[in-house]
């Protein structure tokens, strides 16, 4: 990958002067005086450099990311139980089955629900907490740490903890009973009307810390001068936040939302550990990823599972591309190196 300097070098260095590179190496001081144009390496040396630096990374990426994606796409055209090479070519049948399977569409719906509710619930709360924590107050560092703790915990640990607490005979219902709120007892995990909300709230609890840290970092980028100017103009605290801070926090919010959306499409660990291999569908918390494992690996239908993987990949890719194209464009403008200078 070329840095901006490289790009500028290409354009400004002019036609290569054969032979002069190695002989007339300018001193650092001279280079500094003349600007930032050091000697231009020969083409083969540039290629060697590119291969040496980018080669290992590219090889790993191709082997472990690109190739598996291509293989999954290939397996997706077969009915294959995973023993021996796939032989039974079925064309697009797997894809047709996936897109007409009610269980997959339900799982897709759950993903969409998680996506929207994560944005709606986490965003405002995270901004509010970040604004609070951005002011001087006692115990600020402690609260910052505490809010970040759930994000640091492994998903499996969080899932096991919550599944024990929220079980029908678990701690949460027991506490409700004992403080006289037995009427609020719920089948938190098994009741299909409640379970998806339980999942969303656990996700909020787990990921709010990450959102807060991002927002806090974003707030550091809001210049004090602007706020002071607003104060001098007589704007109240709330008006300052609304008209000054929030608009300037825009890029951070958009990046956070992007990460949250991608995360929502990939939810797997929490569901798989809390609801196990089989009951997520019944409890109404299945996601595309748990559907893939249940109907691919556990069912021994590796062709079908691969096709599901491809569908998830395409959905995620489409969402990511659309988001980047329409929402992230103004943030990344000028920050990325285009091919053309």
């Amino acid at each position: 990958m070329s840095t901006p300097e490289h790009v500028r070098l290409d354009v400004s260095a002019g036609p290569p002067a054969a032979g002069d590179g190695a002989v007339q190496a300018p001193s650092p001081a001279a280079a500094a005086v003349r600007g930032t144009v050091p000697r231009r390496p020969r083409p083969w040396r540039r290629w060697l450099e590119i291969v040496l630096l980018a080669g290992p990374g590219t090889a790993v990426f191709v082997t472990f990311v690109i190739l598996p994606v291509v293989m999954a796409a290939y397996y997706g055209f077969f009915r294959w139980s995973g023993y021996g090479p796939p032989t039974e070519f079925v064309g697009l049948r797997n894809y047709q089955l996936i897109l007409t399977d009610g269980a997959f569409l339900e799982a897709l719906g759950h993903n969409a629900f998680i996506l929207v509710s994560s944005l709606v619930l986490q965003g405002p709360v995270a901004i509010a907490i970040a604004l609070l924590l951005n002011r001087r107050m006692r115990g600020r560092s402690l609260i910052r740490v505490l809010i970040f703790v759930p994000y640091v915990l492994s998903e499996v640990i969080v899932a096991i903890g919550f599944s024990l607490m929220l079980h029908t005979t678990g701690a949460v219902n027991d506490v409700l009973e004992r403080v006289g709120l037995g009427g609020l007892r719920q089948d938190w995990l098994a009741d299909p009307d409640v379970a998806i909300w339980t999942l969303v709230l656990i996700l909020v609890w787990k990921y709010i810390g990450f959102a807060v840290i991002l927002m806090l970092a974003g707030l550091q980028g809001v210049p004090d001068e602007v706020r002071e100017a607003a104060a001098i103009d007589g704007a109240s605290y709330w008006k300052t936040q609304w008209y000054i801070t929030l608009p300037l926090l825009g890029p951070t919010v958009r990046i956070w939302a992007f990460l949250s959306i991608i995360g929502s499409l990939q939810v797997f660990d929490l569901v798989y550990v809390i609801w196990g291999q089989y009951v997520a569908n019944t409890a109404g918390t299945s996601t595309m990823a748990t559907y893939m494992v249940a109907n691919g690996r556990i069912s021994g239908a590796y062709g079908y599972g691969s096709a599901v993987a491809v569908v998830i990949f395409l959905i995620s890719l489409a969402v990511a591309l659309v988001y980047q194209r329409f929402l992230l464009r103004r943030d990344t403008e000028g920050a990325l190196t285009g091919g053309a200078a």
Partner: protein
Amino acid sequence: MTGSNRRRAYTAAACALAGALALSACSGGSTPEGTTLDEGEPYTLTVWTNYTTGPGQDWFEGLAADFMAEHENITVEAQHVQNEELDGKLQTAMNSGDAPDVFLQRGGGKMKDMAAAGQLLDLTGTAVDAPEMREKLGDASYEALSIDGKLLAAPQLIQPGGIWYSKDLFDEAGITELPETVEDLEAAIGKLQDAGITPIALGGKDAWPAAHWYYFFALRECSTETLEATNESLDFSAECYERAAQDVADLTALEPFNEGFLTTTAQQGASSSAGLLANHKAAMELMGAWQPGVVMNLTPDQKPLPDLGWFPFPQVASGEGDAAAVMGGQGGFSCSASAPKELCGEFLAFMNSEENQEGFYEAFGTIPLHDDAKDVVTHEYDEQMLDALAGASYVSDFLDTNYGQQVGTALNQAVVELLTGSIDSAGFVSAVSDAAARG
């Protein structure tokens, strides 16, 4: 690894690679012949088991040492793999041409898939197929592990399912006679509920324990002919399958299961269904013959549950099936396509000798298959199970094993939905039929 063995590995790896590149020339279909060893040629026989407990490993290492003492040129090298990891690991090894010579075989649909891919050795005519072995281990066990007359695994065990119960809790509820019919069972459930005892523990999160209720109702509702025909056709249109689903729904309507059964695991910790039975928090659980060992690990002092009892699944009034039919997990060991055939047969025959089957019972506490080893059985419930097997008109494997992974998994999931009432018995049958059509 010997030279020829390494060559085979390369060939297989090349096949796997070629297959991956859209060629299918190396695909299976025919049963491989295995290899033969020259007299005295040194060989390392690799064996994969799921023996992760101490006594189990000791038993295997002991018999491996005995076998090596008899065959000086042979080294037996065992890998004991965690039960849930075994299938995936095996699959990867097979696809990369690196399968162990001998490995645990669960039978059913999975064995069919392996055989179809040409991964299994036909053990017909080897030492383990000898008439005296067949007689002692039982022809039916051999049948269960054969496809088209080819013996694809040597039988080792059978673990019949039935209802495990706490004698103390049955006494407490005033149940004097063990249930023989479903009406009896329902009466017992009523008495237990009146006494404030949870009648049945159920690990619904793992799905298969819940599905066991359906399997056994189907075993009682459907005739042997229907069950066997469905194993082949995966056609669930026979009316008895819907009746069995209705039986499950009717039972569920009595609310006999532990609170929160849908998110209860089967075997992990005191709050699992086996844990509830082990701690006298529930009176019954429908399980396979491995239950005493699982319960033992979950009692407060990790000792066997003293009042644990067993009775066969009760008969249903409308049933076409025989009350004496038995369902249970059957299993054994297979040899992979490239293993030395004669040696493999000899090893498996040795593994299932009278002496080693007795050791197997002591190490694992599950009833032995070998006729002459049956006199070492001590527990009352083990004797009951042996009696049930001896008098069985028909022995079926668990239905999810018979139907293969895809339909089996769909079946288990559909039972869970049936239990929660999100589908009815007709919806259940159509859900399973859909999966069969897809599979």
